[in-house]
C-alpha cells in the first residue's frame, strides 16, 4: 500500500494488536511444537521402531502422491467438459455441489463413501451381480484414495475451471474461426490455461492428503495403511507410547514443512475468481462426439460426488430419530460442538483481523519492528499448515499428561486448535475484503476524521459484514466436523458430535451412526451454504 490509510495512533494500535495476535498463535502452535521437539531430543531414537517409522512415513507420502495424481488427472477432463458446456441446465447446481465436500466433515463423508463403495455398498452389489464376488475393498489404500479423490477432485476441478473461464471470449472465437480441432485447442489453449491452477491445486491437495487424519483412521487402519497422523493418535491413545508419538510428530512436521515449501515454489499467486452460472460461450466446442463425451464426464463426476452425500441422507433418514433424540448424550454433544465451533470461529476471526490490521499498519516509514510484525503476521496464516491438528494436539496432550485432570484445559486446547485450523481460510477471505474496504473508504474516513474505534465500528465492520459472515460460517463448519483434536482428548464427559459419531461407528451402532452423520452433515452443509460465495445466478449477455 503506497499511501497511509490509518492515522498514526491507529497504526500504533494495530501494531500492538498484531503483536498480541502473533503471541497468541505462537502460544497455540509454538508451545506444543517446542514441547514435542524438546521431549523428542530427550528421547533417543529407538532403532527397533526405525523400520516402523520408515514404513509409516513411506505410506503417508505414497498415498498422498497417488491421491494427488488421481485427483488432478480426473479433474482436468472434468473441468474441461464443464468449461466446454457453459449453459446446460443444472450446471450451477453441479458447481455448487462441487463446493460441498470442502465443508463436509470427513467422518460423514467416510460413512457415505462406505455405503456407496463398501462391501455391502451399491457399487459392490452391482459388481457382485455381474462377477459373482464383491471385487472392491474400500478398506486400505483403495478406500483412502477414493475418499481423497472425493474430497479433492471437486476442489481441483473448480480451480481449473476458473483458469479456463478467465480466458477471454475471443480465444474461443478465434479457435472456431481458425478451425482448430479439439486436440489442438486443448494443447494450445486449454492446457496452458489449466496448467497453473493444476500445479497450485496439486500442491494444496498433496498438503491436505499428507495431513489427512479422519479418512485414514476410518478407511485405512492396519499397519499396512496407516499415516503419520493416525499413528500419532494410536501411539498416544491406544499404546501410550509417547516417544513413538514424538518421533512421528517430528517427521510429520518435517514433511509438512517440505510440502509447504514445495507449495510456495509451484503455487505462486493464486487468483481466485467467481464461477458463474453460465460460462463463456464455447464456439469452438461443437463436435457431436466431443459434446456427448462432455456430458458423460460431467454426469460421472457429479454422480461420484453426489452419491456418498445421497447415501448419507438416505441411511440417515432411516435412523431411529425418536430414540436418538432422547439420548442426553446427543444434546450434550450438540451443545459442546456448537460451543466449541462458535468459540473457535470467533477466536479465529479475531486473530485474523488483528493480523490483517497489523499488516496494513506498516506503510510509510517501515522500521525493523514494523517489518517484523508485517512479515510474521503474513506468515502466521500459513504457519498453522505446518502443524496439523493431531500434531498440535499431541504436543498439548503430552504437556498436560492426557489432560484428564480438568475439563477446561482440553476444551481450551480444542478451541485453540480448531481456531488455528480455520485461520488460513479465514485470513484468505478477510484479507482481500479488508484490503478492498480500506482502499475504498480509507482516505475518505481519514478526511472526515472518522478514526479509531469509531472507524472500526461505523465503517470497517459494517463494510465487512458479508465476508465476516462467510468466515464465521466456514470456520464453524470446519470446527464442527473436526475429529482430529477431539480424538485425543475426547471421553464420556467431553464429547462432540464427531466424537459421538466415531464412538457409535466403533461400537457398530450403525443406525445411530447414520442418524448422527445426517445431523452433523446437515449442520455443516447449512453453514457452508451460508458461507459459500456461490456462483452468481446471471451474467450480462456478452456478445
Amino acid at each position, binding site marked *: 500500500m503506497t499511501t497511509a490509510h490509518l492515522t498514526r495512533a491507529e497504526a500504533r494500535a494495530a501494531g500492538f494488536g498484531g503483536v498480541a495476535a502473533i503471541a497468541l498463535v505462537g502460544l497455540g502452535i509454538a508451545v506444543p511444537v517446542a514441547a514435542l521437539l524438546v521431549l523428542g531430543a530427550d528421547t533417543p531414537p529407538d532403532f527397533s521402531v526405525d523400520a516402523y517409522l520408515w514404513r509409516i512415513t513411506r505410506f503417508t507420502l505414497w498415498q498422498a502422491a497417488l491421491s494427488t495424481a488421481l485427483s488432478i488427472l480426473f479433474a482436468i477432463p472434468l473441468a474441461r467438459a464443464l468449461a466446454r458446456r457453459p449453459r446446460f441446465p443444472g450446471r450451477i447446481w453441479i458447481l455448487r455441489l462441487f463446493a460441498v465436500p470442502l465443508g463436509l466433515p470427513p467422518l460423514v463423508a467416510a460413512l457415505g463413501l462406505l455405503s456407496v463403495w463398501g462391501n455391502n455398498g451399491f457399487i459392490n452389489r452391482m459388481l457382485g451381480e455381474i462377477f459373482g464376488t464383491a471385487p472392491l475393498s474400500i478398506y486400505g489404500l483403495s478406500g483412502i484414495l477414493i475418499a481423497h479423490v472425493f474430497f479433492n477432485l471437486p476442489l481441483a476441478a473448480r480451480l481449473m475451471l476458473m483458469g479456463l473461464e478467465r480466458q*477471454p*471470449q*475471443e*480465444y474461443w*472465437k*478465434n479457435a*472456431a*474461426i*481458425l*478451425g*482448430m*480441432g479439439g*486436440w*489442438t485447442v486443448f494443447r*494450445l*489453449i486449454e492446457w*496452458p490455461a489449466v496448467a497453473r491452477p493444476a500445479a497450485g491445486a496439486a500442491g494444496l491437495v498433496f498438503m491436505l492428503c499428507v495431513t489427512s487424519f479422519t479418512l485414514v483412521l476410518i478407511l485405512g487402519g492396519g499397519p499396512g495403511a496407516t499415516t503419520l497422523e493416525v499413528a500419532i493418535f494410536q501411539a498416544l491413545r491406544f499404546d501410550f507410547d509417547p516417544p513413538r508419538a514424538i518421533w512421528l510428530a517430528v517427521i510429520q512436521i518435517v514433511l509438512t514443512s517440505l510440502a509447504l515449501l514445495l507449495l510456495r515454489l509451484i503455487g505462486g499467486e493464486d487468483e481466485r475468481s467467481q464461477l458463474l452460472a453460465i460460462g463463456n*460461450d464455447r*464456439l469452438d466446442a*461443437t463436435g457431436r462426439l466431443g459434446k456427448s463425451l462432455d456430458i458423460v464426464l460431467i454426469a460421472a463426476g457429479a454422480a461420484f460426488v453426489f452419491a456418498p452425500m445421497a447415501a448419507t441422507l438416505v441411511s440417515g433418514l432411516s435412523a431411529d430419530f425418536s430414540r436418538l433424540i432422547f439420548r442426553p448424550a446427543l444434546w450434550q454433544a450438540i451443545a459442546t460442538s456448537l460451543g466449541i465451533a462458535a468459540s473457535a470461529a470467533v477466536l479465529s476471526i479475531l486473530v485474523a483481523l488483528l493480523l490483517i490490521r497489523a499488516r496494513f499498519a506498516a506503510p510509510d516509514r517501515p522500521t525493523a519492528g514494523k517489518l517484523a510484525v508485517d512479515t510474521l503476521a503474513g506468515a502466521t496464516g500459513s504457519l498453522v499448515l505446518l502443524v496439523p491438528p493431531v500434531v498440535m494436539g499431541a504436543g498439548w496432550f503430552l504437556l498436560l499428561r492426557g489432560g484428564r485432570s480438568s475439563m477446561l484445559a482440553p476444551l481450551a486446547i480444542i478451541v485453540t486448535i480448531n481456531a488455528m485450523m480455520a485461520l488460513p481460510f479465514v485470513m484468505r477471505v478477510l484479507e482481500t475484503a479488508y484490503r478492498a474496504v480500506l482502499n475504498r473508504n480509507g482516505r475518505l474516513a481519514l478526511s472526515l476524521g472518522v478514526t479509531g474505534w469509531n472507524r472500526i465500528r461505523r465503517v470497517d465492520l459494517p463494510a465487512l459484514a458479508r465476508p465476516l459472515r462467510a468466515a464465521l460460517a466456514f470456520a464453524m463448519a470446519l470446527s464442527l466436523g473436526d475429529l482430529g483434536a477431539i480424538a485425543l482428548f475426547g471421553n464420556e464427559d467431553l464429547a462432540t458430535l464427531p466424537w459421538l459419531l466415531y464412538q457409535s461407528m466403533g461400537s457398530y451402532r450403525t443406525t445411530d451412526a447414520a442418524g448422527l452423520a445426517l445431523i452433523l452433515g446437515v449442520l455443516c452443509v447449512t453453514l457452508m451454504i451460508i458461507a459459500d460465495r456461490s456462483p452468481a445466478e446471471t451474467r450480462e*449477455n456478452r*456478445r
Partner: protein
Amino acid sequence: MKPAIDMRKVERKLGDRQMAFDFSRPRGSITAILGPSGSGKSTLLNLIAGFLAPDRGQVLIDGTDVSHLPPGERGVSMVFQDNNLFAHLDIATNIGLGLDPALKLDGTQKDRVAASLERVGLAGYEKRLPGTLSGGERQRVALARAFARARPVLLLDEPFDGLGPGLAADMISLMLEIRADVDATVMMVTHDPREAESAADQVLFIDQGRIAADGPMSGFFERSDLPALSAYLRGRPEA
C-alpha cells in the same frame, strides 16, 4: 457476378429482440456497420462468421450457402478489438494457426508467416510474445494473420478502437492495402464516423436489430431523412 456476401432474409432472436438482416455486398466492397450500441452490429458479424446460427434465412459467401458450416469452414477471417492473439504463444505460432489449425506447417507456409509479418512492417517478430508488443503492433499481427490466410471475407469488430486517431488511421490504410492484396470483402463495425468515412465505400446503419439504411458512404452523414441517424450522430433532442 455473384455477391461476395449475401444475407437472405436472415432472422435471429436474441433475448427478446428480433433481428432481421437482408442485404448483399459485391466482392471487394468495404462496408462500415454503424448504429447505436446494442442495435445488433456485432450480432450481424456473428451471424456471418457462424458464431450464431440464424433462426430463418440463409448466409451465402461467394454464392455458397454456408448457413450450416462451422466458422472455420466459411472462408472468413476476423479481427476483434482485443485478444486476437493467444498471449502465451509467440507471434509466428499465432499466425501459423491461421494457416494450419493443427500447426503442422511446411516450408512454404513458414515463408508465408514471415512474409505476412514483413507485409505489416514487423519482420523478425516471429519469436516475440504478444505481451511484449504494443497494442497497435498486436493489431498489426492480427492483420498479418488475415493477410496470410487470404480468406474472401474479412470481418472487423471495432478493431482500431482505443488506438488513438493517428495510429487508427495508419491501421486503416494498412487494412485497405491488405484488402486489395487478397481481394477480400470487408465488413467493419465501428462507432467512429470519421473512421467509417476514411475506410468504407458503403454503409449499413443498424437500428433496433434492423437495417435502417443501406447505401453509399459518400454523403451518408449529410442525410436528413433518417431520424435514427441524427439521434445517433447528435443525440436525441429529448435526451
